């Protein structure tokens, strides 16, 4: 946008060709990366290219993808959230303590944990907006607070760190249907949520005023404010969106596993960010895509499960994971610069 303005010609009015539109999308490189990873493991392993295998990597990619879409929106808006992974575990523990220990009905526990999720997002957002501290530090603080509070309350109230909930959930058939069913061929319900959320977020980013606000807030907050964008409100909403997504994933986990466990999700916050970045979202804000974040999540899980399919000596697992992710990211960056150069 900035370059266009400086040339003096209003090329916003020039119609871009469809090819150029596709090739210069942030997620274009990641699509190529996903195809490459898929082709590699289909060739390198016996069972990766099979109907059964699809659910083995789609299911974990769904929860990762739901989070990375929310995190990508936040990153486009110029902020980070390091507390998002720990919050998934924390909300699961909240559900467990409210049902198993406080004896509340499941639906009320769900509402209260959703309220807690919104408050955490609100807290992160307001802290970042009001104090002007980097979100990296603020959310690192909440990351530790959530972990400590989760463990502390769990030990204090239940005396356990893994709380089993099969008795509490025995009559929650509707919630199980909604959060933990497997409608079709091993593909679990989070996958459908994931697709819907990706579509919704893409529409929001590209077709609504709110999407424009997100890009402008992350690109240049001062000029966004100058043209009347409610910068603080947008950022706070983005933080809340991440926390509510964490709640959704926590519900998927809690109802599927019928238990809540301390430590769930801790460490995943970086996977959310990595998936968003593989998908073309910039760490500096103002640029990125929701589809890209989802494809990044798909690449991440295809690599992780693909390596398990390959059954290569697991001592080298992290090395392979790192190499494959770097290659996917390099290919992504290479394709993007190539495409942009060829089209300009």
């Amino acid at each position, binding site marked *: 946008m900035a370059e266009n303005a400086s040339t003096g010609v209003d090329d916003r009015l020039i119609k871009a060709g469809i090819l150029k539109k596709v090739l210069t999308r942030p997620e274009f490189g990641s699509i190529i990366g996903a195809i490459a990873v898929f082709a590699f493991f289909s060739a390198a392993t016996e069972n990766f290219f099979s109907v*059964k295998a699809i*659910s*083995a990597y789609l299911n*974990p990619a769904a929860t990762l993808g739901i989070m990375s879409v929310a995190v990508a929106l936040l990153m486009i808006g110029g902020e980070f959230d390091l507390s998002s992974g720990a919050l998934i575990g924390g909300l699961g523990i909240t559900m467990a303590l409210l049902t198993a220990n406080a004896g509340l009905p499941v639906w009320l526990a769900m509402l209260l944990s959703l309220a807690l999720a919104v408050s955490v997002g609100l807290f992160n957002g307001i802290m970042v907006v009001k104090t002007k501290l980097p979100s990296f530090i603020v959310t690192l603080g909440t990351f530790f607070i959530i972990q400590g509070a989760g463990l502390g309350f769990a030990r204090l109230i239940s005396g356990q760190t893994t709380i089993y909930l099969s008795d509490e959930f025995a009559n929650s058939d509707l919630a199980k249907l909604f959060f933990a069913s497997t409608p079709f061929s091993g593909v679990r319900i989070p996958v459908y949520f994931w697709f819907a959320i990706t579509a919704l977020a893409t529409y929001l980013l590209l077709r609504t005023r709110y999407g424009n606000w997100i890009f402008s807030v992350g690109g240049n907050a001062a000029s966004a404010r100058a043209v009347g964008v409610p910068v603080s409100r947008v950022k706070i909403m983005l933080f809340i969106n991440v926390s509510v997504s964490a709640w959704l994933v926590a519900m998927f986990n809690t109802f599927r*596993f019928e238990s809540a466990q301390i430590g769930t999700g801790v460490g995943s916050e970086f996977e959310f960010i990595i998936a968003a970045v593989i998908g073309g979202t910039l760490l500096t804000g103002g640029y990125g895509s929701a589809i890209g974040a989802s494809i990044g999540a798909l690449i991440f899980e295809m690599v992780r499960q693909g390596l398990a399919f390959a*059954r290569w000596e697991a001592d080298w697992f992290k090395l392979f994971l790192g190499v494959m992710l770097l290659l996917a990211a390099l290919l992504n960056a290479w394709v993007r610069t190539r495409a942009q150069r060829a089209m300009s």
Partner: protein
Amino acid sequence: MIKKRRLWGALVLALVLVMAACSSGDDDTTTSAATAGGTTATTSADATTTTGDGGQVSQTGLRFDLIFHDKDASGTFWGVMKVGFDDACDVYGVSCNMIGDPDITKQAALVDTSIANEVDGIILTLPNVDALRDAIQRAADAGIPVVTINSGSDVFATTAAIGHAGQDEFIAGQGAGARLVALGATNILCPIHEPNNAALQARCDGVEAGADGAPVKRLQIDVANLDAAFETLKTEVSDESIDAVITLNPDVSIRARDAIAEAGSSAMLATFDLGEEVLNSIEAGTIVFAVDQQQYLQGHLPVIALVLNIANGHVIGGGNAILTGPGFVDATNVAQVKEGVAAQTR
């Protein structure tokens, strides 16, 4: 540009070659796989598949996956289990893969992958039985026998697993607590190094039950950050009323030993699980005893159980866990155990 492009090509090719070479395992087909992989990315990948299917399997042709709840087998504990696993796989000519993740959702995803990968048997640690019950059932439905190991002796029978090899953590803790009290302990510290592992809670609970009324204080530390654990332990043992510490992991025990020394505490130290340095300390008298759950057996016995089950329908244990512990190692038997630790079998 051309130079740059060649450089990239070379880099990618080199990485693919490294991966192909590393992946082909430690048997005699290594060379053929590496050589075959020398042409292009596609053929090297194909060569890997061939190795996985034909090369590594010599006698039974079976493929077993061991899925555990830690990030890798780098610690003393999982390392010895892996040796036990690999040794058994060598004996029976099974192609084996040991892989793990501390996050329960990801451990469950790895089980799904093993099922989709149509392995012949799955060996699974059981840190959270409710979360893995469904996955074990799906493996059983797919005709894949599952043996659970390590934690979960008391609950494995509620799953579709055909057997379990492990230690009853509460019973082991009870024995350890009784021993500590017999040695004169009156106020015991029990540091827990993985908050999400119910088995560790059971150990401390067992210690309390066996300690004949002596108070047992739980302390939360993180095995992934042993330096921080050291500082926490040092602060705790500076409290002179603590006269005994029982750690639940050999790597933690070494930090506890050093913390006790640095704090000038006179607390006695015992630990769960062995390591070379633990045995040195038992010889030197800085650790009074170690509870041995013989994790080598937890890697080894399930392979035998699975092979026999697949071949003949045998079931080992009769619905009960095969107990691999507790054994106690102290100054009286440390010399013999030490030979085993050097060979990575204890």
